[in-house]
């Protein structure tokens, strides 16, 4: 049996921007898929897909959308309705009819609100030169607030002082319960008042979130299990394993489990393949370590869809780093196969795991294939450049 016939978990083995979106699109276009399930992150994801001349940077919608595959946002995803609506409009422009009807959301998913976003931006600006490389989309703040239950003002939770009296974090299911939502948002607004006051009041948000709840299908219970029983699922990871909240390099991490562990949780023991996505060189946005960083790599491979983010900082690049790749794979508890992207890049080099200087890498595919089966190969974000191989599992062989 081919590795990719069943459920597939797609994780990035770098600092993000490995090509997860294009790989998910290629997997969905390759054979029937019941749904793409997002298992971490939120509106900060930016997965570029180009298919038949249509381009979209997928953020909360799954990258299988151009292939007509519905998206399920699991309970591990942070949902930001304003950004979701804006993304739905962009997808309509790209020719996807009523994209919101392709979406289902677990009611337990946390809501990212304007309060979180403004607080996130205020904190990052206050850090000045010590920025973490945040996207400024309130992701970390949403997670942090959700951890404060029972904390008192002045306490320090996860290295941040609790600035007021916290309450329960609002969830997607609350959007359909205006009185619950209003209570939670009132508490949230009071909590963040010392840090940031967004223009939108609670009343306006309650109305808007109610419309959001009407427009998308909100699920409870084990929706992922139901979908998995109906057919093949592709799990789309956001960010990269090297930014993981437990395995990344603090403080330059995302407040998210980027390894396959959430997906495994959702699958509840069902068989699956883990597909690790890597470029033929390393990239990252903003601050944080990049040991093999090289100006020559950056100059050689200009990006069509990535540039300097206002909050994230500069786009950076470096040679392939064998030690980091091995580390990322280990952080996943191993992966079954690799998806290698940007194979059109020439003049590649790799820094071997022993830390010796970079050496030329004339045949990157052979280098990767010597480590793990290579199940997907690709170049840019365009589906036309992707091939899905009938890779066999070494585990089940």
């Amino acid at each position, binding site marked *: 049996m081919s590795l990719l016939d069943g459920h597939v978990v797609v994780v990035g083995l770098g600092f993000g921007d490995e090509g997860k979106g294009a790989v998910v699109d290629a997997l969905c276009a390759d054979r029937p898929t019941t749904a793409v399930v997002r298992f971490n992150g939120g509106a900060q994801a930016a997965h570029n897909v180009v298919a038949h001349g249509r381009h979209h940077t997928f953020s909360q919608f799954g990258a299988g959308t151009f292939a007509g595959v519905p998206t399920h946002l699991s309970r591990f995803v942070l949902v930001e309705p304003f950004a979701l609506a804006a993304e739905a409009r962009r997808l309509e422009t790209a020719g996807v009819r009523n994209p919101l009807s392709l979406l289902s959301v677990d009611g337990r998913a946390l809501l990212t609100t304007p309060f979180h976003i403004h607080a996130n931006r205020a904190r990052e600006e206050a850090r000045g030169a010590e920025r973490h490389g945040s996207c400024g989309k309130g992701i970390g703040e949403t997670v942090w607030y959700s951890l404060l239950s029972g904390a008192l003002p002045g306490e320090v939770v996860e290295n941040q002082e609790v600035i007021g009296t916290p309450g329960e974090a609002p969830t997607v299911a609350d959007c359909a319960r205006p009185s619950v939502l209003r209570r939670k948002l009132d508490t949230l607004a009071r909590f963040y008042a010392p840090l940031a006051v967004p223009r939108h009041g609670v009343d*306006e948000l309650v109305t808007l979130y109610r419309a959001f709840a009407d427009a998308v299908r909100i699920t409870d219970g084990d929706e992922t299990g139901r979908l998995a029983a109906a057919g093949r699922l592709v799990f789309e990871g956001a960010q990269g394993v090297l930014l993981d909240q437990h395995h990344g390099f603090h403080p330059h991490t995302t407040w998210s489990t980027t390894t396959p562990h959430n997906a495994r949780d959702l699958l509840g023991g069902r068989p699956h393949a883990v597909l690790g996505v890597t470029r033929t060189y390393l990239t990252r946005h903003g601050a944080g370590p990049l040991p093999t960083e090289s100006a020559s790599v950056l100059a050689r491979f200009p990006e069509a869809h990535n540039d300097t983010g206002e909050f994230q900082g500069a786009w950076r690049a470096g040679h392939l780093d064998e030690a980091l790749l091995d580390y990322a794979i280990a952080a996943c508890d191993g992966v079954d196969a690799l998806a290698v992207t940007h194979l059109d890049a020439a003049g590649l080099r790799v820094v071997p795991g022993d830390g010796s200087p970079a050496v030329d890498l004339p045949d990157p595919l052979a280098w990767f294939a010597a480590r793990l089966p290579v199940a997907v190969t690709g170049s840019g974000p365009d589906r036309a450049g992707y091939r899905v191989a009938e890779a066999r599992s070494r585990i089940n062989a």
Partner: protein
Amino acid sequence: MGHGHWDDNAYAAAKTFRAAKGEDDFGYSADLRAKPAKDWKAAAALDPKNAVRECRDSADHTDSTPIAVLFDVTGSMRRVPRIMQGKLGKLHGLLKRRGYLADPQVLFGAIGDADSDRVPLQIGQFESDNRMDEQLRTIFLEGGGGGQKSESYELAAYFMARHVVTDAWRERGRKGYLFLIGDELNKPALEARHIRRVIGDDVREDIDPASVYRELARKWNVYFVLPNQSSYYNDPEIGEHWSGLLGQNFLKLDDPGAVCELIAATIGLEEQVVDVDRALADLADVGSVAESAAVGKALAKLGTKTVVTSAVPEPGGPSDVVLR
């Protein structure tokens, strides 16, 4: 704050959510979209697999005339299918009321992309009552399409040529009316595998689309309507392609909301019941004042005809499908 430009999206976000909810009123599409994509399929009444559609005379309707309206439901058509879905239901009434045809029977269908869509063809049944509305509501608006500027119109044409039986033709040698509404090109070839999968005929070789349209033209007056608000309204390649196949039966329509009136007026002209001026006056009489301007513009070419003619070969022309 300086970085709050997304705040300006509040109004737009609310509008987006409301619009998405409104679309759910179209029950079949909404229900299907709640299911995994692999379960998407045409409603049983619209599934062309191994199907034959019939337009028969009856005691009540002794002079039946078949009218088939098949519209492209892929993404490039944007909101046009929904606009049409909402307005085509009154087509039958319009034809009857103005006396253009004694016994019109109307069939609706939908066209997608056999290369990339799960539901590339839906074909309803000829109806002469409000079951037509139900057909329109159960058309699945998949909204996919392959993005190669071509859709499977020729697959629909093949079905209409081979799988439709009409008393109008059998008993009276009278052609039916077929309106294809879309904005893209035919596929370069009608692929045998698509015919087998979607329609069920055991065809083993690919077919030249032009030959399908020649065969179709023996029993049908075929029109292609390119409505505004679709992706390729101003693309000359579309017009050249369809004019090449259908001659002056290629019509551009400014207002997609006027499609029902355009079909009625076209039939009135072809039946030589009315001229363009009378047809437009009729539209005004039935309250389609705004639509009549768009129809008048679309019909400018047809209206110059004194006799109903067509650029496609008449029944004596080649009838065999050309294989390649």
